[in-house]
């Protein structure tokens, strides 16, 4: 049984937190915002951060559940 959440970081945010991904225990995690705070207890949430759950954009107060892939990244600059 999956009891974890995969957390991924991209671009400048990956450099800032010093890792591309990690797995955290999903127990007690209710929102995307809480995932950030548990995964990065010493880092404040950047103002312009974007978040996705299972590859769809979400608000920081969106719910999460075990087995989710949560991603954090800065504004996109492709094209």
């Amino acid at each position, binding site marked *: 049984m999956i009891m974890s959440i995969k957390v*991924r970081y*991209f*671009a*400048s945010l990956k*450099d800032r937190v010093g890792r591309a991904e990690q797995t955290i225990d999903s127990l007690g995690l209710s929102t995307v915002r809480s995932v950030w705070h548990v995964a990065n207890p010493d880092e404040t949430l950047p103002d312009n951060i974007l978040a*996705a759950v299972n*590859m*769809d*954009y979400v608000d920081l107060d969106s719910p999460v559940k075990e087995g989710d892939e949560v*991603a954090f*990244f*800065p*504004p*996109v*600059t*492709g*094209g």
Partner: protein
Amino acid sequence: MLIKICPDGFDPWQEIQAYQQNALTELIGKIGATSVFVGTMRDFNEGDQVKGMTLEHYPGMTEKQLAKIVAEAQSQWQILDALIVHRVGAILPDEAIVLVAVWSSHRGEAFDASRNIMEALKSKAPFWKKEQLDSDQERWVSKNTDGYTTC
């Protein structure tokens, strides 16, 4: 509809020709307009000379978001087909970064849909540019230039 993420260089004009010959044969006679946008890498940005760039993306989410962008355009305009090709990895000035091609029966739909797809790609598709300056300094591009000119 085709979405391609390319780790190697691509020729946008060959991509259009190949797609028209292979995927659009059933639309012969129905196409009245093809709108094409090609974005290429500049050798300057924000007052600095740029000698190279690395494009990072979020595999899976990028394709998913691009498919949603095209689906939204298809729901808004009468388009017959669309092709998006986007480069990732190491890239040099003058190389193509992105191709958006839209086929429609009429120019208005083709122009409007391709413009909309391109602007949505710039704000929603998870790609990030890291520039290598002539000074050997590296920096992440933090924002896009405005897609609309002001007079």
